[in-house]
């Protein structure tokens, strides 16, 4: 028995199978068949395979060398600074989101004055950062001529709100956190982008804007994500704020933002 390609939803049924009516109607795992009261072996293993890929995505360590190499290959010239949250390991990180929002004691970041800081955060899927951070950063920077951008920050055991102390320390007027999203059964490498204007600890989630599911070829492409993000960045700069207020004001924004 061969494993399906990727995190496999049920294999499409042959056209002459009446169950294909159900299967073709939804991505849900319908018409799987039965072995007694349980699942057929192939369907059971497909499900386990998808779960295994998702679980591994959560527990894969963030590989800084791999991210550096990807950025270099993409021609991103910004320096990269590594930071850690106060969560010392994955087990602690998963149980203590509060620690993942705070910088480790003694963290040094170059204070400056920048329009924008970009933080690459492992979040719940380091794989998403490995695979999609460099492409996303490249597409965003291409669209921001004239913006001053702080050194890139690669953050280990990080939650979205770690961008607040990072952005503040860097002296950035806006921070965007590129974070690995919680893996789903068929999407283990999804990157989310969170924009916060005037970052500092204590910012509420309602003060952020989010673009989810950056994951070509299945989710948003880098270009689509960057177009939307840049529109949000310009609106946030103009308004001097982000979050719910930006969504409400942002009549010119593409649909589905925020």
């Amino acid at each position: 028995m061969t494993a399906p390609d990727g995190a496999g939803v049920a294999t499409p049924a042959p056209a002459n199978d009446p169950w294909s009516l159900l299967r073709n109607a939804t991505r849900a795992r319908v018409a799987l068949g039965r072995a007694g009261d349980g699942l057929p072996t192939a369907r059971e293993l497909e499900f386990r395979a998808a779960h295994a890929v998702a679980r591994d995505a959560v527990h894969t360590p963030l590989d800084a060398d791999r991210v550096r190499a990807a950025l270099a290959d993409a021609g991103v010239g910004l320096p990269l600074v590594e930071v850690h949250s106060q969560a010392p390991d994955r087990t602690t990180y998963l149980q203590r989101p509060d620690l993942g929002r705070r910088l480790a004691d003694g963290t040094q970041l170059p204070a400056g004055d920048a329009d924008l800081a970009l933080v690459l955060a492992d979040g719940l899927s380091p794989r998403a950062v490995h695979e999609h951070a460099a492409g996303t950063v490249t597409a965003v920077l291409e669209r921001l001529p004239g913006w001053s951008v702080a050194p890139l920050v690669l953050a280990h055991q990080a939650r979205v709100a770690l961008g607040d102390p990072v952005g503040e320390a860097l002296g950035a007027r806006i921070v965007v956190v590129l974070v690995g999203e919680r893996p789903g059964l068929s999407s283990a490498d999804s990157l989310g982008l969170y924009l916060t204007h005037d970052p500092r600890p204590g910012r509420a989630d309602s003060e952020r804007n989010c673009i989810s599911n950056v994951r070509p070829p299945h989710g948003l492409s880098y270009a689509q994500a960057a177009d939307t993000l840049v529109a949000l960045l310009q609106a946030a700069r103009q308004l001097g704020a982000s979050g719910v207020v930006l969504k409400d004001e942002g009549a010119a924004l593409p649909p589905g933002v925020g």
Partner: protein
Amino acid sequence: MTVRRSTLGGHTHEFASLSDLLAKATPARSGDVLAGVAAESQAQRVAAQYALADVPLATFLTEQVVGYDEDDVTRLILDTHDAAAFAPVASLTVGGFREWLLARAAERDEAAISGLARGLTPEMVAAVSKLMRNADLVAVARRTRVVTGLRSTLGLPGRLASRLQPNHPTDDAVGVTASILDGLLHGSGDAVIGINPATDSPAQTIALLELVDAVISRYEIPTQSCVLAHVTTTLRALEAGAPVDLVFQSVSGTQAGNRGFGVTLDLLAEARTAALELGRGTVGRNVTYFETGQGSALSADAHHGVDGRAVDQQTLECRAYGVARHFEPLLVNTVVGFIGPEYLYDGKQVVRAGLEDHFCGKLLGLPMGVDVCYTNHTDVDGDDTDTLTLLLGAAGCSFVIAVPGSDDVMLHYQSLSFQDVLTARAVLDLRPAPEFEAWLARMDLLDDAGRVRELAADTPTVRALLAAAG
């Protein structure tokens, strides 16, 4: 504030308040660590359990965990307390109450246990659960009877119902219908066909209500529908004349938590009244459905009680049941593994919490179901959900939730599959709700032994159903 002490292994442990005692006595879970209230050692935990065992049950009527003046959930609980129902256990301590429950369960005295409900407060029930092992929770819950009904009857002995959850990422009508048919063909849906809408708008809610109502009407299925939109959205649907069987809402154990959900007790009462007026029931008049889950108050920063002290998540969960029971629900379920590892870290914690929630809800008089589920960043898998499901089946759980192939493609988490429900029924000799079972038989979906048949696609029933879907 009474300070309580207990000595274990030569060391005296002090517990500054009733909420501190309850928290320290709670079996280990990540959410209580996150809230900073968990026991700091195993010995401290057991010392707290010793001290809690000595607390008279009546203490919970006079000493509050969340203050009476500042919290309407506390007022609801105490103002509706039934002293006559409490009388059989009024003189007992928490430890004595555990023994009383186990003795009545052993005698199979369902009337004695079930008759207590309105005499118990959530804090009493939370307290006794903290002294109970998993098997204690199963043994007592099994002998606690809570029967509810609308168009099917739930909670009868020897039955295990399921909510068919046909969620779709875009609420697509064909996609939702495909999942409904798949569930029905596997004998699921007797508790409710309940959809979490992708968009919480009145128009979308009405469209989904009409879709499920059409399926139920077309095949004359003795069950009910629910679109799990916010209660204010359902009220709008009711005003528009939509076919609303059940008013749904997530509820919390504190007034602040309910504010976070955007609800008040008055709003819930108003919606219930409106749904009752439609008179859509055939076998009963329970028209509300509530979901809860340990950690929801903490995640909303609504977990503080007397003197600003944080309350443990399981006690707060029981207080949510104190809210739910006031509205005579058809269905209540805890969503036990949904909220994440910062509240329940692994399979052991999820199994324990599922059994606690089921026991506590039932003892308080609720038709208790469980969404046996997990997310991918929690250390839980299908083996853990099997364990919990079979234990819940043994405990007489009213219903579980089932989605196609365990994979909720809208909410991105794993719940039970329709096959899991079949397995639990087969292993534990449980049957669907009686009206629904009769319908399955009429549709020729049961074999001679009463089991849900595995159908070939070329049977007349399947052809008819699939033709309807296409």
